[in-house]
């Protein structure tokens, strides 16, 4: 099945329904269109061109040429130390049918992968490398918090996240880390995590 391309604004194309990862598509498109801006979604890629040429056929051609599912670049594994003292630990335990201690151990046992950096600067959407987990049944808060503290570790819809700074948010909070996820003074690599990196959460010893 070939990916679906849709016009998105006047200079962008939304690419969906592909069999590989947004990351691999982004890498291929960056090589083919060095002057374009390429951004990933959880299951989509948006490419924005600097001009108004019609690039549909060219993009389709590049996508059709992607043969390998192999990862082209090496990724790092980042350990994130966590104090598991989040306000929603009990709610997450209830939603999963686990005890609080089991929630904490399961969260550490999962090897997470950064699927997307989005929403806010350095905000990682982490999914289990295995695809699914005991946290799939955990929903977002009905009413989002207006202020989630910096470093808060959250769970929602089978994914985990870390809030890089104080912001509103609807993920259920299970802990907190001291680690700095986003550093505006680091112009080359402001984000600790990049798409494709793997994350392991480790409980801080008490």
């Amino acid at each position, binding site marked *: 099945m070939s990916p679906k391309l849709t016009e998105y604004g*006047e200079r962008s194309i939304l690419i969906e329904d592909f069999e590989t990862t947004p990351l691999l598509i982004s890498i291929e498109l960056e090589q083919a269109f060095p002057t374009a801006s390429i*951004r990933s979604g959880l299951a989509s890629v948006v490419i924005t061109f600097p001009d108004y040429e019609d690039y549909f056929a060219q993009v389709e051609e590049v996508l059709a040429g992607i043969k390998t599912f192999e990862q082209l670049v090496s990724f790092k594994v980042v350990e994130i130390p966590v104090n598991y003292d989040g306000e929603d630990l009990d709610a997450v335990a209830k939603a999963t049918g686990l005890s609080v201690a089991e929630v904490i151990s399961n969260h550490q046992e999962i090897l997470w992968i950064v699927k997307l950096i989005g929403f806010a*600067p350095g905000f990682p959407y982490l999914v289990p490398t295995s695809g699914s987990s005991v946290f799939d049944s955990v929903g977002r808060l009905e009413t989002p918090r207006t202020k989630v503290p910096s470093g808060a570790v959250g769970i929602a819809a089978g994914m985990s996240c870390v809030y890089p700074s104080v912001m509103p948010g609807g993920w259920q909070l299970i802990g907190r880390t001291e680690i700095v996820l986003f550093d505006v003074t680091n112009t080359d690599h402001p*984000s600790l995590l990049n798409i494709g990196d793997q994350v392991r959460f480790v409980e801080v010893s008490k």
Partner: protein
Amino acid sequence: MTITIVSAGLTIIEDKGRTEYTNLGVPVSGAFDKLSHQLACNLINEPLAPVLEILRGPFQLKSDTELVLAVIGEAKVTVDGYPAPLNSVFVLGVNNNLRVVPNSESPVYLAIKGLVIQRTLGSYSHDTLSQIGPAPLKDGDLFETNEIDKNDPVIGSFISSNLKTSICDLRYLPGPHNFEIRGNWQVRSIARSGIRLSTNHPLKDASSSLASFPVMPGAIQVPPSGLPVILGPDCGTTGGYPVAGVIIEADLHKLARLTPETEINLIPITRQEAASAKAQLSKTIANSVTRPNDMGAW
């Protein structure tokens, strides 16, 4: 060479925006009214300058050296109580008080030649969502300027084109998701993060939530309420609501000039029409500034 902010009002610093880090979740930000911002920059002949975006007055400053500056927008501008011009470059004398009071909720732009601001991630822009960039101005803040040239040819420049457009007609490209949004909507609220619309007939079947995908300023999101939100410069980089269309780049500046209760008209157009609207606007901007030297001997 120190500027003192006597009264900050609600004022932030903006440039063209921070486009290089959207893949790391950093909003684009940049001036809300990009047309006025560009004109202000062109007047002082610093196309990439950091410019003050005055969202609420009264704004007042003074400086211990002369300043070369320009104010664009709907505002009352005075120097020590005497009327000063809009849309043109003038010199503010030592210790004279420049006062800018916006006439409406639309932002007003103050460009100061040689204003020194630190860049954050390559841009001078303040982002109201993540607070990245220079902090909003406070009473008593001090800023530095580079030394000015008293014979600077920009002094006396003015905007000579008529750039009046109907702010209520907003052209958009439909898609990527299918909702019929053409026609009249009422503006409910305006913020740099987005413009909320209202109607007696909300869109139906708007409840679907999608895997988060990249969004951009001008994208018309359809949340479950069926009342669209047009994203502004400080919108998050990704969103999970369907996008019914994207306001064309040539009309984005109009969003900043809307006021609550305004009736807007969403007009679908084609990509070719969007491209020619952009080209036409760029041409108008390029020809909009008249320098004193241009007027020649007559």
